[in-house]
């Protein structure tokens, strides 16, 4: 499929804009991890994160150059492997603080299988929905997609990690949006969900209700979720226009802000870099998102479009949930901010996905 001359043009066509945006956001994240952990027991986190960042960039390159069609071809194998790993997580690991999320590896670190599953699902969606992009979809196809999607969704939800499970939903949404699935099927599915609601309500464990209300009711628990919301708002607000300066944010440095290097990294960033910094970072994310969408629009085939748009949907969902949480517009959940939050699994997963997007762009003239 590829010629030597095409290979040469790849270097020229390599999406430096996308890569630049990724590197800029990642480095901003790395610096902020350094700043927000320097006075905590996790002060080594930035070094660990830097290693992951290098690994992530390597994965980005690999994903850019290995033809994505090959990935799509073996995606079902990946899918099956991922499912097995998710089951392994549920069965073989001890719950840490009530949830089984991490699978230990022989290399000494643990991985979050649910993050890897996002990459696999991007490929799965590309594989299966691209078929329907050009023909009239049937209910059976809809069911296939449903099965492929809901199996990992349920396994993740059983960990229980509801927020990660929910973050898979935009993948399905994007697949439905881009496929020619008929409006009546979507409406039908919606109706089924509505009818199932009372059943779901009855089956909900009581503590789960409390957990959700606890997450969302700031007055309920003095030092848990409500406290986080308040402290996050104070951190963001006290940043003002120009911020308090690198390693100067009192909310971050004095540990009023919870998890300032993972879920609330943007609050910490907002405190130290102010509105100007926030505007720049949001601008970078917006540019990145638009670049991905552009790659999708200009993709050589339906698979490429679906890959790029799925990644765009995932990215947008993560940004909305995490940034919205920091901006105090959506409830607190445990979703990390892509590319910035501390954590290897999420970073590597997004790097791989962005590599795929780059790949799609590189392959746009090859057919």
């Amino acid at each position, binding site marked *: 499929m590829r010629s030597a001359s095409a290979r040469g043009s790849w270097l020229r066509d390599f999406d430096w804009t996308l890569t630049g945006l990724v590197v800029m956001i990642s480095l901003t994240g790395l610096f902020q991890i350094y700043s927000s952990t320097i006075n905590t027991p996790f002060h080594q986190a930035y070094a660990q994160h830097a290693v992951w960042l290098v690994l992530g960039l390597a994965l980005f390159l690999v994903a850019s150059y290995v033809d994505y069609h090959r990935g799509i071809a073996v995606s079902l194998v990946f899918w099956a492997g991922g499912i097995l790993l998710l089951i392994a997580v549920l069965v073989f690991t001890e719950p840490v603080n009530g949830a089984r999320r991490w699978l230990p590896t022989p290399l000494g670190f643990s991985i979050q299988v649910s993050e890897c599953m996002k990459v696999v699902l991007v490929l799965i969606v590309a594989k299966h929905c691209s078929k329907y*992009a*050009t023909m009239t979809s049937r209910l059976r196809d809809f069911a296939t997609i449903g099965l492929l999607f809901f199996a990992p969704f349920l396994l993740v939800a059983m960990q229980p990690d509801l927020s990660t499970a929910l973050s898979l939903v935009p993948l399905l949404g*994007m697949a439905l*949006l*881009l496929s*020619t699935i008929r409006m009546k099927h979507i409406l039908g599915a919606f109706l089924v969900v509505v009818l199932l609601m009372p059943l779901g309500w009855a089956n909900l464990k009581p503590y789960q209700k409390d957990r959700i209300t606890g997450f969302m009711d700031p007055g309920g628990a*003095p*030092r848990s979720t409500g406290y986080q919301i308040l*402290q996050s*708002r*104070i*951190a*963001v*607000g*006290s*940043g*003002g*226009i120009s911020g308090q300066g690198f390693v100067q944010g*009192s*909310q971050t440095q*004095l*540990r*009023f802000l919870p998890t300032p290097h993972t879920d609330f990294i943007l609050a910490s960033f*907002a405190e130290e870099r*102010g*509105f100007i910094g*926030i*505007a720049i970072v*949001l601008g970078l*994310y*917006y540019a990145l*998102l*638009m670049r991905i*969408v552009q790659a*999708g*629009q*200009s993709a*050589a*085939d*339906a698979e490429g*479009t679906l890959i790029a*748009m799925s990644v*765009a*949907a995932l990215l*947008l969902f993560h*940004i*909305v949930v995490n*940034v*919205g949480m920091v*901006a*105090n*517009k959506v409830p607190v959940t445990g979703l990390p901010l892509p590319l910035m939050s501390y954590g290897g699994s999420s970073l590597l997963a997004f790097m791989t996905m962005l590599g795929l997007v780059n790949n799609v762009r590189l392959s746009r003239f090859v*057919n």
Partner: protein
Amino acid sequence: MNWGRNPQANAQNNRIACFQAVATVVFALLLLAFLEIQVVNGDYYRAQAEQNRIKSLPVPAPRGLVLDRYGRALAQSSVVLGAMINPRAAKPENLERIAAGLGLDPAHVLERLQDAAEFGKSEHIALKDSLTGADIAFIQAHRREFQEIALIEGMSRKYPETGVAVHAVGYVGEASRSELNMREFLLYGYGAEIGKSGIERQYNEWLGGEDGKVLFLVDSNGHRLETLGMMDSVPGKNLQLTIDLDLQAVSELGIEGRKGAVVALDPRNGEILAMASSPVFDPNKFVAGLSSREWRAITSDRNAPLLNRSIQGTWAMGSVFKPIHGLAGLEEGLAARDFQAHCTGGMPFGGSYFRCHKPDGHGTVGLVQAIAISCDVYFYRLGNKLGIDTLARYARLAGLGQKTLVDLPDEVPGLVPSIRWKIRHTLQPWQPGETIVVAIGQGAMSVTPIQAAHAIGGLAMGGVWHRPHIVSTRQRAEIDPQSRPAPPRRTDIDPQHMEVLRQGMWTAVNGAGTGRQARLSGIDVCGKTGTSQRVSNELRLRAKREDFEDDAWFVGFAPCSSPEIVVAVLLENGKHSYYAAAVARDVLQAWLVNRSPGMLTDLDPTLAASNAGPQPTVSEE
């Protein structure tokens, strides 16, 4: 764009455009949200962040020690772990549980918080001093819920538990609302600890330091990270008293279990060597804070334990007045050696019969014997000749009827009646019979024990009355370099007259007088007893009430010829003066042990010689 050619791909591109539009709107909304929080409300949140991270706590200053004349402690400050509460952060719903956990009255805590708010106090106020192990465990186990509570290493005043000199030293406590409005305590804020009585109050500013304050950064757990600013506390200065704890201890043991007072002075300079009052109270309780019920109980106690009887209570002086009366007679030339009285157990006057304390009479007595055996009839006659105003003049000369100006708060002046006083206060003319009563220290005349010691001490010095003081002169010069010791009040007494009075008081103790209980081997003690009636003898015998019993006095000094100590003992309802004399004897004995050994056998040869004559006369009776 090769699959943009077919219509479905076109639809797809439009859907992508929709996604772009939605993403753009979402980003715009998020940016707006940050704009609102950071730019519009930035100042508000910045202030919130400040409040989060900067905390201030008081650094209590230790109060100076109160020391006796040899540097032994009467009151000290010790470091205690105390709990303080931040009125601004206090949550009403927590109060009940906090109070229960620390054994406090929730209503009281609430009241204190309200008062603190009223007085504009925004810093921590004391919740409980001297925490027990259980209190500390309770607070530490509830740190998360009760963020308003801070554990502070504070200073707590410690007073003797056995009531040593509690009335003289006084106690400290939190300034009350009314005290905060006093001029004396204008500079103190709500919750400040001030001296409430005794020298704690008199020398409050010297003893009390200035509390410091520390501003520091805290992290989210309230841990101190970094001190931002420190206003050091200024520790209070020590205060040295003239009290001798050996004498003080014996004085208190002497009146323990009774109502009364002991004052021991050095008549040569007015230093107070011992000042005891009984019953005592536990000042440590006042430091910890009394509940209103405890306060009512202690203030309404009929035995008035808070009263410093040595300077705040007045009693009829009784026969202790007689040496002063004798002085008046001698100086006015009416009690010359040839003036004698024949005592038959009483004297009719103005239609009444005035009894002597000895029903069958003392026979014919001169001044020396009259003082020694305390013959009332002699002084009835002498007093009548002198008249009330002359008696009053000499009484005032001896310091009666006016404050001694001792450096302690709330001293009372006592009373020396005169014709003018009677008219002014009762609009009645003076009755000659009243002179007769005053002549033996009864009637309207009343004195405090310190006045009695001061008066007799000055008399024993030959007419030099030094102002009594409880803080050493050296220490006072340190406190106020401008202050000069008050010059003594002097009067020229004919040495021969002095000799007569001294002889009378020597005989009272060492002869067959009324003060024999005060006799000591190794030193000459002079003294005068007094038994003053509270009610008429008839009523006392009929009613048989404890509080109608006579008050017992003894004022003695030693050595007779050159006095170094004067001791006044008052036993309220003490029944008889020899009880008082026995107390004074033991105080003098304790003093004697302390006196340098070379002076132990300081017997006055002149007195012994001059008393060789009169002594048999007295013992004959």
